[in-house]
Structures are given as structure tokens and as C-alpha cells.
């Protein structure tokens, strides 16, 4: 597979996915519609990393606007055979120390699982979204791919913190990314509904992590959380609506791809967008338009906002009792190439594992196929649990 969309520096230390903009570097966001586009400015996270001595080696392919499983339908980089995420593979091979990805539908967490590494989707609002090709503003967040918790913590200390250029960036406060919190005696919940949706390979990984933690004195209890399916539907609706709205600016008028043939402005829009987007994106646009339409808004969009509040409250209650929640992050570890016609359903089916964190903004760290979730700003608990489990791997 091709690991880079654009190689920038031979001796770069990190990679960022192609949804993160760098000045004067061509950025496609995985889509033909952005052909020829390059940004006039650099994302805040990249600025911070470069200042801290982490130059970017290059940008890695993502699915069109990050909407697919792990980047299989990236414009010009379509994958065949077994699927992998490019950034996750670079980290696994040790070619970069860590990488950044935008987590909207769980794609980076899935990719980390497939490559057997780790990815942290931090608490919403802790990392600036300035300079990403944004789709679903209310739940997307930049996170870190790395092979261990220690490296994730190091990267987070650099990229997290208030940025006045992002209105959703939380006011300045200090975040805890310690990896050495005592875990013994902590109670952790395992969501049975999600475990049952996973295949044996994934289940085995979960069982291994549970055993590792129990060895260190963590108490793991199986619980039921029926609303993980509701979270998936709600996030699908909000994500599609916001994506449809945010990518409506790619219309062939100002930059990027424009269809060659058109008679008038309406045809310019229609032809450019018809030729510029893949079927998954178009499905998302139709779905998003529909849930925002007058006849559906109340039943779809508004209900999803209510579900978001409700589920956040339920999770809060859960985190009163448990330090963290464990669940599989995907149904299987062996995705292979498939027809784009099936993409919408396939991604939706996998989002049941990842949607809760995007919908409610809680942090989620995946180690292989196992994800840990905690209350907002509970990153240090996640990092510490992951680190304990890492030690048992050796």
C-alpha cells in the first residue's frame, strides 16, 4: 500500500492524516473534489508539534472526508485485499514515532486495532480543530496513533490546550496525561452488548486485556448498556447532517475540482459534485439533507440532540461507579476490500462500537481491538490502564 499522499520531509518524525492541513501542501481529504487544493495556513496541532521539535514527514491517505472504515476509498489510493489504515501502519513499522488522525466515525481507532497499535481520541474540546478539513464539528477530534501509552501522553502534552482560533476549544486548563495512576482496586465495566457483536479474534483480545487487568487488582464487571445502539443512530444522524452542511462548500466555484462541462451555475454545481464525490459521500449528503429537512428535523435531528444529552447523563452515572468502561472497538480484525455500494451500511455497523465517544465527547483509547472509555478529562485513567496491559504483553 502507499503510505503517503504527500511526502514532505525525509527525516520527519511524525505523520498526519490528509484531513489535517499544512501550508502549501496539497490536501485532498481523500476526495477528488479537492484536487489541486492546497492550504494557505497550517493546522494548530502541526504548528505546536513543529515548534516542539516534531517535523511532519508527510500526510497519509484517508477515506474521502474520513467517512469510510479505515481509508479504503481514498481518492487515488483505493485499497485491495486486506484493509489497513496508512498512518497506523507507519507507526506499527516504526517509520514515525507517532501520527495524528481525525476521529469522527471511529476510523483511526479501527485502524489502530487492525495494526495492533494504540489510538487516543481525547475529550472533545481539548485539542484545537483549527486547520482540519472539518465534517462533523460537534464530535470530531484530533487524536494520536502510537505504539504505547507513554508516547501518546507525550504527544498529547504538546497538542492539547486552548486555541482562540477554535470556538469549541475549552478555556485554558491543565490536562492530566499521567500513565502511572494506580489501577489496583479500580472498578471497570465491560459492555456485554458490544462484546457479543464481535468475532472470536476480537473477543480473545478483550479477554486477554481483562485478565491482564484482573492480575493487577482491577475489578472487571460485565454490564449492560443498551443505549449503545441509540448512540450509534444519533451520531449517524448528527454526523451526516453536519457533514452534508460542511462539505456543501465544495461546489466547484472557488477551488478544487470543477467539472469540465456545464451550461449554467446549477449544472456547474451538480456536475462538479457528481464527478467529485464518491458514492459513500453522496449517500451521506442525501442522508444528512434528509434528516435536516423540515419534515424530518424534529423526529431525527432534534431527537438525536436529546439522545446525546440523555446518553451523556447515563454515562456520567456509569462513571460514578466505574473508573472506565471496556468494549471492543470493532467487530473483526480482518476487513477486506468491498464494493463502495456497501460502504454506508458497513461503516454504520462498525460505528456502534465507536459512536458513544464521538457523540458525547468522552475520551476513548483503543489498544488493539480493545477500547477503554472514561469520563471527560479521564485520559490519565485510560493511559494507565493501557500501560498496565502493555506490560503484560511482554
Amino acid at each position, binding site marked *: 500500500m502507499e503510505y503517503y499522499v504527500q511526502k514532505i520531509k525525509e527525516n520527519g518524525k511524525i505523520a498526519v492524516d490528509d484531513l489535517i*492541513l499544512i501550508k502549501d501542501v496539497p*490536501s485532498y*481529504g481523500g476526495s477528488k473534489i*479537492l484536487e489541486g*487544493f492546497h*492550504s*494557505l*495556513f497550517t*493546522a494548530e496541532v502541526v504548528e505546536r508539534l513543529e515548534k516542539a521539535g516534531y517535523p511532519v514527514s508527510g500526510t497519509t491517505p484517508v477515506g474521502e472526508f474520513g467517512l469510510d472504515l479505515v481509508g479504503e476509498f481514498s481518492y487515488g489510493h483505493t485499497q485491495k485485499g486486506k484493509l489497513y489504515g496508512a498512518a497506523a501502519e507507519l507507526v506499527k513499522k516504526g517509520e514515525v514515532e507517532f501520527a495524528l488522525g481525525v476521529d469522527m466515525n471511529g476510523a483511526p481507532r479501527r485502524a489502530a486495532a487492525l495494526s495492533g497499535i494504540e489510538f487516543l481520541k481525547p475529550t472533545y474540546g481539548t485539542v484545537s*480543530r*483549527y*486547520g*482540519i*478539513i*472539518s465534517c462533523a*464539528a*460537534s464530535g470530531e477530534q484530533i487524536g494520536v496513533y502510537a505504539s504505547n501509552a507513554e508516547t501518546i501522553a507525550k504527544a498529547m502534552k504538546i497538542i492539547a490546550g486552548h486555541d*482562540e*482560533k*477554535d*470556538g*469549541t476549544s475549552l478555556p485554558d486548563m491543565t490536562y492530566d496525561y499521567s500513565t502511572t495512576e494506580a489501577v489496583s482496586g479500580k472498578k471497570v465495566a465491560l459492555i456485554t452488548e458490544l462484546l457479543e457483536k464481535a468475532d472470536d479474534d476480537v473477543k480473545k483480545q478483550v479477554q486477554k486485556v481483562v485478565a491482564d487487568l484482573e492480575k493487577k487488582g482491577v475489578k472487571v464487571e460485565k454490564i449492560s448498556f443498551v443505549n449503545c445502539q441509540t448512540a450509534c443512530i444519533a451520531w449517524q444522524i448528527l454526523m451526516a*447532517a*453536519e457533514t452534508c*452542511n460542511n462539505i*456543501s*462548500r465544495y*461546489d466547484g*466555484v*472557488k*477551488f478544487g475540482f470543477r467539472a469540465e462541462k456545464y451550461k449554467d*451555475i446549477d449544472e456547474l*454545481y451538480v456536475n462538479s459534485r457528481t464527478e467529485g464525490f464518491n458514492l459513500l459521500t453522496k449517500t451521506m449528503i442525501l442522508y444528512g*439533507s434528509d434528516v*435536516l*429537512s*423540515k419534515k424530518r*428535523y424534529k423526529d431525527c*435531528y432534534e431527537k438525536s440532540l436529546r439522545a446525546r444529552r440523555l446518553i451523556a447523563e447515563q454515562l456520567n452515572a456509569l462513571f460514578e461507579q466505574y473508573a472506565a468502561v471496556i468494549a471492543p472497538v470493532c467487530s473483526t480484525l480482518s476487513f477486506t476490500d468491498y464494493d463502495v455500494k456497501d460502504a454506508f451500511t458497513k461503516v454504520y455497523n462498525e460505528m456502534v462500537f465507536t459512536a458513544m465517544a464521538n457523540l458525547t465527547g468522552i475520551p476513548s483509547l483503543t489498544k488493539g481491538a480493545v477500547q477503554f472509555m472514561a469520563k471527560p478529562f479521564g485520559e490519565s485513567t485510560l493511559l494507565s490502564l493501557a500501560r498496565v496491559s502493555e506490560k503484560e504483553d511482554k
Partner: protein
Amino acid sequence: MKYEIVIGLETHVELNTKSKIFCSCGGHSSAKEANDCVCPACCGMPGMLPVMNKRVVELAATAGLMLNCNINKYSTFDKKNYYYPDLPCAYQITQLNHPICTNGHITIKTKDTEREIRIKQIHMEEDAGKLVHEGNFSYVDFNRTSVPLIEIVTQPDFRSADEVLTYLRKLKSMFQSSGISECETGAMRCDINISVRPEGSSEYGVRTEVKNMSSFELIEKAINYEAQRHIDAIEYETEELIQETRRFDEATGKTFAMRNKETEADYRYFPDPNLMPIVIDDAWLEKIKANKPIILDERENLYREVGIGEKEIAMLLSNHVLMKLLDDTVQAGADLKTASSWILTDLIGLLKRKNIALTADTIAPAKLARIIELVAKSVITRATGKKLLDVVVEKDVDPDEYRIANKLDMQQDSGLLENAVRKVLQENETMVAEYKAGKEKVFQALIGATMKELKGKAEPSAVVEALRKALLR
């Protein structure tokens, strides 16, 4: 049958801020070339996020206070989706569900009626860019994109074009005088909702909307045309009225229906997740209130109280430059009523004769106040005052220097005063020398000596004048 016209207005007003509503681009009105005043944010490039300009919130809230609205502590932004090449993101950020101001009112007086117009809401939003068509090509200019606007929505409370124009003039004057908006050509645009019904009826007729009108003259024409069209349709069944959006064609003086496609759009509004709700806490609201300019109605009452005539009040209220000059002249020490007569009679008359337009720089308020004082204190006559005003407007001279140099003062019938001054100056040569050497302090002593010589039987101001004059020789 007699008919009543029912009109509601949506008025867009461009706010007078240094930068745009969600980015730091500034100075669009003085941009020389198309797209001189743009950045990645206001031309819709990916990666940029809207950051709220606080000044916009303050100006919108101030407008709300002036229109007696509730200022909502919590307000939110929504995205309105539609495709048009002058809209770079294909959505406009506006306020639909939780606008910043609600439930206000304003009283308007025309020559026939006095009416309270209810303000439904005021919300903040961003402007779009503009298209320039040349031959077979169309170009996009984003200079205006994201320029801050407020939209003031009234209830259907107007009953004539005259009332609408009175309201608009009042808004314009209010916003100009308070610095909320410069209200230049095109910076104030209206959508007019209009229907007619038999007089006495309480039900509304079929409503049409005439969009995007900015010239007052055309607004009047459009309302009169549209109202007559409705009446004809009802009275003579010339056509069937339908609820629709129309445009006014300046050339024909008629309105015409817009394509249905444009009017039946579903804008798919939803809350903008990139902008946190705006929370105006008590401290901020107090600060905004403290800076609130005097409301026109309050001013009007004040003018009436001091006895300014109705015609003059109307003149003042319709011209914020006049009002400001009057304000500042009073601030500089002049009496309100006297100053209003000087400004409205003498100054305006003078400008008319010379065919000069009144601007903020026509005359320094302090100089005008001094002229008024000189006349009030009988240092110069009223007629001389008028001449002095003329020179000050023309050459911006100092009134005192000029009148002294040109010996404009009244021939005081007081040999007594002059004799006393002459005597004091002769007897105090040292002090005179000191004064001429720049020692201002001794002037007080000279005043005291003169007053003593006159046994206190003199106007102190007259003594000061006489001394100054004598010392200048």
C-alpha cells in the same frame, strides 16, 4: 369598499465594526479591488472556524435597548443552507431559534397618525458576497462576505407607506447617531411583507413579500404598487392573490413574482456546533447599558420640555449630524434652546445661502458655544454674532481673537469702565509688564483692582473683557 394596508418589515442593517463577524478582516467598505478584504475564513476554505466578534454582540444589544427589547441572556447561532455562488460556504450563519433581542417596540409619528410598532426580534447574521456579471462571465467578490448585520423584524403593525418611511428614517437616524451603523446607501435593506383587508376586518389578507429594497423612494413606490395590486385583485378579481415572494422592478415600477424555486427552498436550518451559545451576563449587560446612547424618544421629550418648536424637533430628529452638533454645543456650555435656534436658524440659513452641506466638521461646537455666549453676555450684538458665525464657518478662526482684532464688541456706554481700567493699568505698570511677559496670574489681581476702583458696580465678565482689550493694545 375601503381597504386597510397591513405591512410588516424585516430590515437588515450593516453594523459599524472594525472587523467582520467571524474573522479579523476589516475595512471592506474602503476596499479598492474585489476580494481585497478576504481571508481563508470568509471565503469558505476548509480548516477555518468562526470566532465570534464581541463588538457585534454589543452593537446588536444596544440596538435592542434602543428599540425597548428584551436582551436575551442566552442566544445561539444557526446555519441556513442554500447554494449561491456569492455564499462561499453554501450556508449563512444566522440566528433562528434564540435571537439576541425579542419583544420590543417603537413609537412613530406621521402627520396623521401616531402608532406603536412592535418589534418581534432582532438577530445577528453574516452578509453574503456579491456577483459581478461581465459579458458571458460572472465573477465573485467576497469583500462583503461575513460583514455583520442585524435583522430587525417587526410585527405587521404598519398601515401605510408613510408609516414605513417614518419608521425607517427613525431607525436610520437612531443608528447613525449612536454609531451602531453608518447606514450608507445599501447598508440598510428591507423585505416588505404586505397584505390588504377591508377596513374594520381583523383577519389578515393574502400576504406577499417584496424582497431586498433599499431606496426609501422605491420602498414607497413598491408598497403603493403592491397594495393597489392586492386591492384590484380583490375588488375587480383581476388576478388570484397567492402567498409569494416578489421583486420590485425599478424600470417599470411594478413588482413581479420570483421563480418558485427560489421561494420554496427548505433551508435546513440547524444549530451551528462551531459557535458556543452567547451568554450575556449581568456585568456585560450593565456595561452595554452604560454605553447606551440617548434614545430618540427621550431626546424628543427633552426638546419639547425646553420649548423647541415641533418643526424644529422634527428637523433635529431626522438628522443625526444636527443632533450631534446640538449635543456637543450644549456640552460646551451653551443653553439647549438658544443653541437649537442658532443651529436651526442661523447656521442652516447660512449654509443654505452658501450652498454648503452640513458635516461633522462644519463648525467646532466649542466655537459655536462661545459665539452664543458672547451674544448672551452682550459682548457683541446678535447681528455681529451672525457675522462672526459666518467667518468662523468660513475660515475656522477663533471667535475671541477675531472679534477683538476686528473691534466687533458693542460700544459700551461706559466711559466709567474704560476710565477705571485705564487708571488701574497706569497705577500697576509692574503688573502689566509681568502680564505681558507671560505671567497670567497677575490678571486676577488686575481684575480685583478694577472691581475695587468701580466699587463692585460692574459685570465681572465686562471687566474681564475691558481689561483683555486694553492689555492687547
